[in-house]
């Protein structure tokens, strides 16, 4: 068992009211890549959280922020974690200015909770990453997570208008503001989004909002060739139609979720799910024109989904992206077909199975590989795919994998020439290394 670290009694003496756990058995649920934090802090307010960071900064100890932990697996192996700081207690919507289409919320709230409150006034946050029920806003922003509808609405960087962040010394700073347009000073929101807690802890966020869609439909097409599927995708993105999402699915492996949803995806070929949100009046023609474009590229229409069926379908898609081993590959859209070919070839050679879910219109592919314990073959496959991505103006991030695999493969890939500029920022924001190092690009 871990020995009692000397700072724990000091901390408890100074902050008797702050809830914390240092029992190693209980902490087992909170390991990060098999590393046990010394203590879990559960502050009830943002101010408490700031005081904790200030204490740890003064003691030269390290802190790692955590929401509900849905994304703690992303990242290289962490350096020693003194404290894991849980943000889930600050979960209040502070303002919902419905007539102004903006809101301000504490960052420990889950996306689903936030959406439920916004829905009361007919609005929503246009972010649809997986795990809405558990993922917190802070976690979603820190990991820059997104979903299929980023095709139409963009990602977190396009929705956030302001942030409050606990800095490495425990001070709380603000960036941006509460209005939808703002160029005062540096756009630090962009810097914090996707920084994985290496620069600060996001504790509050201001968003611009959208009205709920009056009507929504999803078409499912099947294609025999990937080239056709991607040409249809490009046909749609370059048309005057405004699909909210174009998801490409190709599933070879076991489809865990399908039976549960009483819904099966095709065994062969490539499926394209095209989602439209629109006024009812424009929907019919959107659908008809989309059908025409798809047919030009030899598609078979399989389903036309609405209502609950449609909801279940998209839930299933989001579950597909969460197996034990998956990589996220970002490419120009026209290179996605080549990527899929590449994945199929590698799978054949290495005797692997791949499931692919791609935001086809954005050029973002989530590739799940199995069996995940086939270490050396997996390493070969991922290395090949990473080289392919880099040769095609893209990149590969290993979003989910075992701790063991991280000893052989970098989660982020080699940093590029601009890494020095990132290091300089990290050094300015967190010179003493309060925020746990090791996990982010280049070990930041």
């Amino acid at each position, binding site marked *: 068992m871990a020995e009692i670290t000397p700072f724990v009694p000091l901390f408890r003496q100074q902050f008797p009211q702050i809830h914390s756990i240092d029992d190693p058995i209980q902490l087992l649920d909170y390991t990060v890549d098999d590393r046990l934090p010394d203590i879990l802090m559960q502050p009830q307010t943002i101010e408490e959280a700031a005081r904790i960071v200030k204490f740890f900064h003064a003691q030269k100890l390290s802190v790692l922020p955590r929401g509900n932990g849905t994304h703690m697996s992303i990242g290289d192996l962490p350096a020693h974690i003194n404290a894991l700081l849980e943000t889930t207690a600050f979960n209040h919507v502070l303002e919902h*200015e*419905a*007539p*102004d*289409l*903006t809101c301000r919320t504490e960052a420990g709230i889950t996306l689903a909770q936030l959406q439920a409150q916004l829905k009361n006034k007919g609005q929503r946050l246009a972010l649809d990453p997986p795990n809405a029920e558990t993922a917190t806003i802070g976690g979603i922003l820190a990991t*820059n997570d997104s979903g299929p509808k980023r095709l139409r609405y*963009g*990602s977190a*960087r*396009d929705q956030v208008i302001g942030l409050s962040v606990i*800095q490495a010394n425990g*001070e709380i*700073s*603000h960036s941006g*503001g*509460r*209005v*939808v*347009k*703002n*160029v*005062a*000073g*540096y*756009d*630090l*929101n*962009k810097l914090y*989004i*996707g920084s994985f807690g290496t620069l600060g802890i996001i504790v509050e966020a201001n968003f611009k909002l*959208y009205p709920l869609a009056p009507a929504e439909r999803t078409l499912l097409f099947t294609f025999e060739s990937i080239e056709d599927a991607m040409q249809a995708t*490009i046909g749609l993105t*370059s048309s005057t139609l*405004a699909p909210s999402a174009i998801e490409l699915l190709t599933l070879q492996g076991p489809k865990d979720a399908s039976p549960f949803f009483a819904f099966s995806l095709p065994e062969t070929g490539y499926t394209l799910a095209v989602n439209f949100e629109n*006024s009812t*009046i*424009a929907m019919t*023609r959107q659908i008809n024109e989309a059908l025409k474009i798809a047919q030009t590229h030899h598609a078979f229409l399989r389903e036309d989904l609405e209502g609950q069926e449609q909801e279940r379908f998209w839930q299933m898609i989001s579950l597909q992206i969460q197996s034990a081993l998956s990589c996220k590959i*970002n*490419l*120009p*859209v026209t290179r996605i077909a080549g990527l899929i070919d590449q994945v199929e070839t590698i799978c054949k050679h290495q005797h692997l199975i791949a499931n692919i879910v791609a935001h086809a219109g954005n050029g973002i592919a989530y590739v799940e590989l199995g069996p995940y314990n086939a270490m050396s073959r997996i390493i070969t496959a991922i290395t090949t795919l990473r080289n392919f991505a880099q040769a095609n*103006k893209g*990149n590969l*991030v290993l979003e989910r994998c075992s701790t063991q695999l991280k000893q052989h493969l970098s989660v*982020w*890939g080699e*940093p*590029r*020439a*601009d890494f020095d*500029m*990132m290091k300089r*920022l990290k*050094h*300015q*924001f967190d010179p003493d290394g309060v925020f746990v190092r090791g996990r*982010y*690009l280049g070990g930041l």
Partner: protein
Amino acid sequence: MRLYFTFSDMHGIISILEMFIITSSEGKQGRKMSIIEEPFTTTTEPPYTRLSEKTKIQVIKALQEVSGKAYVLHTLYDLALYEYDASIERARPDIVVLPASTQEVAAIVKIATHYHIPVVPRGAGTGLSGGAIPIYGGIVVTFTRMNHILAIDYENLRATVEPGVVNIHLNQALNPHGYAYVPDPSSQRACTIGGNVGENAGGPHTLVYGVTTNHVLGLEIVTSEGEILEIGGEAYDTPGFDLTGLLVGSEGTLCIVTKIIVRIVPLAEDVKTMIAVFDTIEDASNTVSEIIASGIIPTAIEMMDQLILQAVEADSHAGYPLDAAAVLLMETEGMREAVNAQIEEIVAICKKNQARVVRIAADENERQLLWAGRKNAFGAVGRISPEFYVQDGVVPRTQLPYVLRCISEICRRYQLKVGNVFHAGDGNLHPLILFDAQVPGELERVRLAGHEILEICAAVGGTITGEHGVGLEKQAEMALIFTEVDLRIMKKVQTAWNPDQLFNPGKLFPLPGRCADVKQL
């Protein structure tokens, strides 16, 4: 030559003195501190002294070797063009260079580092906040020659451009193919994409599509060490910090941008433009609030008040009414059916709010004319006033009626005429305060009124600039919306990337000695 330089320096000193005299006589009236009490020109930090003539000759020679004699300007005559932008500030550079390539830019930066001379990047000089004004002199790098569209990739919806490409030229290349680059500042016929990136420019059509930052995916930059770096790229979500997001809108204070990868979009199937005419500003602003609240998001909602309408109509004869208190210029685009439905809803809201007339542009010609009127509004105001000062505050859209009332009250108190022409849908105000710098004390009153307007914007939860940038103009006002901690964090970014303030020194941050004025939360 010697005479010229002496004259030039004298000129600079005189304007500084003028400003200072005005300041000390008027600035102490109000209890509140303003920009004027400590004019930027008196700041001692960063420590840049004007170039000695000897050094200047050496620098010119070095620069000539990089870019060629013809592209290094240093005579008073040539430099005079570069002492302005579209703000009310001015300062003369020592040297202007027109590089033709990224490598040249990198070489120029290295020369500047060697001689410790500031470098100020400049697009077309249409900026409204003094971003391109070289207040410490030094080298202005202007991108007139780096004006090539390097690639357009329709399938991937990307274009790669050099920073000197004029905004509208990109659209002229894209439109015939059925595509567009969305951000369209009113100065788009002159302003460059590089300048747009520097200021994170907006425009009337940002309501749905966002501002420049939402359309830039990658950059090539030159760092303050003269290193050339690729940032971001054509694909999304490059691992590591979103440096592209940080650099867009950094006002030339962190790096020099030499290449830009932007997102392009297919043109909408249908576009409809309409005007709604109101007898009171109140009705017009209530209409805006109600349209936004109803969940309809048109692509543009612009407001013009009577003073502006009269100037615009005299200038472009677009058919705007002269006797209206306010007109809303609105546009919606998308699928034909959706556009028609939106128009119906908008018309209903306008009528409910006592719109006198609602007119939908009958054809493309009328549409273009209405927009030409709006986009030339700043120029048109030149007909009725020798000078104007434009502010750029943003307020929550629900606060528009209140803030517009405050603006007219403030200007009345300072005995200044004000016209409003702005992006109402975003809550992004552009009060144009008319003045004549020849009238003693008038410029001073203009600055004070401008400051008070921004105080109101900040007080209702808004911001001091929505698209024009902080530059020289709103440095003091940064303290209205950011705490000392917030500003310190921003300063860290500058320290990380531009530690000696080689790039665009003396901008963006409140000036030394003004910490007491920093907002306390």
